[in-house]
């Protein structure tokens, strides 16, 4: 089954890549004029990642049609400078994409520090689709879009291989290191945002002449 599913995913890869390119253009154009965008980039899920997700025995329920059901086969990411820019980006993207999910991912408990990001699942819009895409049952109708600050990303990317999908349990000391890094990133985001707010106040005072 893995081999057959892998073959079918490889067959779809060129189509996914073309739609990925269109979505990246669409997203970049949608965000034109917004300040503090560091980067917009999209990717197609790699072959092994797709198969691991599709066939993970922990999936409850299991995927019946993973080629259609796995929603991050095409995924994009928007990196911004400041916390306030996350909502600004989300608001701007709402003028281009239909959201199916909009979730602020953050640690379950207030006293914990870890992964933070804003996750969107969007319908692939008609202008990005390829001909006959809609008639096929083995292609996704949605894609994932993550919006993060640079600090959220600086924590999420390295720890992705270290902790999130590690096949073995991490030692307590390593977990605490990762939590410390996450807390530092969280703190840096907060500090940057306070500086932004101070800057805005100074700007407003200059304009009013006080």
């Amino acid at each position, binding site marked *: 089954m893995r081999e057959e599913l892998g073959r079918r995913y490889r067959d779809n890869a060129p189509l996914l890549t073309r739609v990925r390119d269109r979505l990246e253009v669409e997203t970049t154009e949608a965000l034109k004029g917004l300040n503090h965008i560091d980067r917009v980039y999209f990717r197609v899920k790699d072959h092994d990642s797709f198969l691991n997700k599709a066939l993970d025995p922990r999936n409850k329920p299991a995927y019946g049609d993973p080629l259609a059901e796995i929603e991050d086969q095409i995924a994009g990411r928007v990196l911004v400078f400041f916390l306030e820019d996350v909502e600004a980006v989300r608001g701007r993207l709402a*003028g281009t994409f239909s959201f199916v999910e909009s979730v602020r991912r953050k640690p379950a408990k207030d006293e914990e520090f870890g992964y933070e990001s804003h996750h969107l699942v969007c319908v692939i819009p008609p202008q990005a689709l390829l001909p006959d895409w809609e008639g096929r049952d083995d292609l996704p109708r949605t894609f994932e879009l993550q919006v993060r600050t640079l600090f959220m990303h600086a924590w999420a990317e390295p720890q992705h291989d270290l902790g999130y999908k590690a096949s073995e349990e991490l030692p307590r000391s390593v977990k605490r290191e990762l939590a410390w890094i996450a807390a530092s990133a969280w703190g840096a985001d907060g500090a940057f945002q306070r500086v932004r707010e101070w800057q805005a106040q100074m700007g407003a005072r200059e304009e009013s002449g006080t």
Partner: protein
Amino acid sequence: MKLVRLYAYAVSPMKNVEHAEPPSGGAVRVTPDIRTTFEGMAVSAEAKIQVDFAVDTTTRTNDSRDRVMQFAFEASAAARSAATSLAASLAERMDRRSSACLLVLGSLRDADRARVFILTFPKEDALRLRSGGEEATIQVLTDVFSQTSRLRKAALFEGKNRKTAFLSGKVLDFQATTGSHPAADFWITDFLQCVLAMHGEAGTRELAKCLRRTYEAAETPAEKEELYAAILSVRRSPRPRWSLRSFADTYLAGRVKTEFIDAASNAAIVDSAFDFVPTVFDQALNFRVFRLEGEVFVSAPFDQIGNGRPVVVTGVEEKHLRCEGVVVDESLKTRHA
């Protein structure tokens, strides 16, 4: 796909009615004639406006979508409940500006894939003539519903029974692009709980993109002027909603029109409606650049070009440009920006 389920209801406006009467109707026996008629309607090429269900992004639910899928995939009792619920929902959203209608819901199946169609036919009075011998009689029929009225509406949704399917569909609604917003929003927004799949900003950018590509491909000054006139007209038009095709039908002709339609990102979006966003249009397409003899370049926003404006352009085949204004800034460059 085969028609497996058909329900029909007579729906009267019940919005703000104190003691609303539920729509009357129910399951329709699928005879060969009925099957032929409605299977044909279910693949109607007329339903071209692409829509997405407006899903609650925390729960991933939408009442209309949930009912449509229940109608498509659940057993008879649940399907009947969904159909009745949709009929009642339609009645609750119809006010006295709407005429009573026939609501038809059908489901076609092919293995685990379903297509659901939702059709409305407005009620009309009709006359029937019966003639025989030397006498003729006229009957006034008051329980007739029009198949051809421009007030009729349709919606088509298709897919498998999973959370990633039935998120989008196609709609027929003549009022969606020509009427006022309340009329335009009734079917798509209020009843189906959908939004236009091509959002306003994206659709407006697409329009600007098509215009730019067509302008670049224009072969004669007259073609360029036609496009320029179209750009000015749409910016001034009070019409809030367009499709690429309705824009082309309104403002373009001949080769330019064909080029414009061919410039779309894909053929499927040509008939897809979107709300025109003037600010996005101006950001995407706001400058006209003229290159004069002697490598002189004049770049001006559209609203600065014309009689009485700083930039005046005359002539068609051979144009002349006159520009006058107060210099507020100048710079030295290695080449024209």
